[in-house]
């Protein structure tokens, strides 16, 4: 693999709360190779959003990077001045957020907002608007030129998400970070957006870090997948490895639970019993041990090692160590 666009090494992030330190992310290692789509999957509270906030350095005020580093095109994001950081954001790196309904400023026209993100470019305003409308057409918004004068509320949710994607791609980033961009959309729209992203990624050749808890979206779009559980990256690998040969018991359980995976209709669906452990008082050993059907004694008191299962495919589990 060539040098990854984004290289997260040993990242730990804590939240300082009145109740104690929430260890939201622990020892995350993740690489996003250039022009590839990396998916991050996990249930609520697994730390996906924290990871993104850390990457773009737009973190909550009480969040602290406890350890590790994030390298973006070789630069250590933690060391960058806010000026350098701003130079990266919206140029080499751009984002699509979860809720298209609130991601655009309601009192400015779409054109104005798309123009403003090109504020660095020394071209005429007309040229910027032209680029904007071209981009809108590209993401499938009909009659793009005239719609530049519309306000966000003139667009439906799906349209708005297309606009935010257009904005994200307008700056031709090296890395696009997509934070659950389809969660708020209906299934038929989700399909459309995924397809759009896939096509555009092929055209623009940018890397995408894609976050979702919809397994089928991840499966369809991504080249590599990381599975997160309770602040840890428990397994990562190519999309086929993850979906066809899941190593970590959590990945397996997660796949089994999805009702669309279960071919035969059944009244009783599989579940993962138990709850996510407290991130303040972390259990010793494997983070998943108290919900793991195959937990052994070692799982309870020793943190699991990272086991390589195939090229690029690793999982953190004692039981895979043979």
């Amino acid at each position, binding site marked *: 693999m060539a040098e990854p666009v984004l290289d997260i090494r040993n990242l730990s992030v804590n939240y300082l709360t009145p109740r104690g330190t929430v260890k939201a992310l622990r020892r995350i290692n993740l690489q996003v190779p250039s022009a590839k789509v990396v998916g991050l999957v996990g249930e609520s509270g697994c730390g996906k959003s924290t990871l993104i906030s850390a990457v*773009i350095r*737009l973190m909550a005020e009480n969040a602290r990077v406890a350890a590790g580093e994030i390298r973006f095109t070789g630069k250590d994001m933690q060391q960058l001045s806010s000026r350098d*950081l*701003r*130079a*990266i*954001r*919206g*140029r080499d790196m*751009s*984002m699509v*957020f979860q*809720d298209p309904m*609130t*991601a*655009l*400023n*309601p*009192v*400015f026209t779409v054109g104005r907002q798309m123009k*403003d*993100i090109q*504020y660095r470019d020394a071209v005429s305003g007309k040229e910027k608007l032209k680029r904007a409308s071209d981009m809108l057409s590209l993401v499938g918004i009909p009659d793009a030129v005239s719609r530049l004068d519309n*306000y966000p*509320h003139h667009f439906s949710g799906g349209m708005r998400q297309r606009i*935010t994607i257009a*904005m994200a791609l307008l*700056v031709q980033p090296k890395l696009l970070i997509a934070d659950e961009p389809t969660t708020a959309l209906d299934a038929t729209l989700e399909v459309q957006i995924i397809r759009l992203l896939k096509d555009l990624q092929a055209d623009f050749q940018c890397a995408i870090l894609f976050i979702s808890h919809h397994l089928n979206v991840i499966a369809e779009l991504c080249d590599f997948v990381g599975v997160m559980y309770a602040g840890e990256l428990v397994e990562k690998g190519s999309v086929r490895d993850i979906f066809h040969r899941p190593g970590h018991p959590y990945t397996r359980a997660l796949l089994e639970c999805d009702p669309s995976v279960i071919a035969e209709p059944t009244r009783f669906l599989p579940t993962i019993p138990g709850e996510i452990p407290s991130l303040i008082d972390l259990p010793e050993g494997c983070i998943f041990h108290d919900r793991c059907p195959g937990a052994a004694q070692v799982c309870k008191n020793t943190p699991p090692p990272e086991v390589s299962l195939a090229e690029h495919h690793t999982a953190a589990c004692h039981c895979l160590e043979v």
Partner: protein
Amino acid sequence: MLFYLLKRIGLAVVIVVVAVVLLYSMIHVVPGDPASVILGPRATPEMKQELHELMGLDRPFVVQVASFLGKVARGNLGMDFFSQRPVAQIVFKQLDETLVLVLASIGWAMLLGIPLGCYSAVFRNTFSDKLVGFFSIGVIAVPSFVVALYSLLLFAVTLKWLPAIGAGEPGQYMDQLQHLILPAFAIGLGWVGYIARLVRASMLEVLNENHIRRARAFGLPEHMIVFQYALKLAILPTVTLLGTGIGRLISSAVFAEIVFARPGIGKLIFDSVVSRNYPLVMGAVLVSTVLFVLSTTISDSVNAMLDPRVRERL
């Protein structure tokens, strides 16, 4: 939009009519006789009676209200029997003074309050934010008539920097401006704090919204984010506040008008009530009520103009 405006105006008219009826019924039960005040201690009962008839006070309540509303509908606020002048002329003359005062107060309060609020929001939880917060809440709390009294004493009487009473020579704008400073300071001070707090609160809210986060993720310069993207949204509640604020100030300016012996509609109402000058009371209250309703209507409309989402729903 047209429908919205019609609806607002219709509502305003209804409010004004209800206010007039309310006012008339209040006047009806308030003891006191304009005749004894107008005519002075030397008036005879016959003279008083005649004045009552002239003012229509002998007619039944409903007739009085109806005839007043009828006259108002024809654009006539009636005659002031004290000074033998049309009420409208007197009221509007005083209204000018009050409006100048109110707008000046709100104006400087806004010019100071909005930047303070933005500053506080952007530098939230810093020492200077706390300081600004302390200051703004402090000035909200201090009663404006106390501010008026002290500033009068300090700046006019003791230091003699500024004139103490009146509104200045008509036509001499510099003079009028100087006469405006202290009263505008006194009633605007609390609003500085008020506006600063409100702008800070709504600014904080807006700065936490997703689209601001997105704007930051795109590396937009911070001044653009704060002063354009966020302020345009954060200013909306302030606009609403100003609408009701201007209306409320019109009547609460009475303290400043009394302390600084300034002419104005608040003082006019106060004096006319005290002297039971009913035509003036009616006229002045009607006009200030209309103004209140108008300013809320306008501020709502301005709000609607600023916010395209609201604008188009109308």
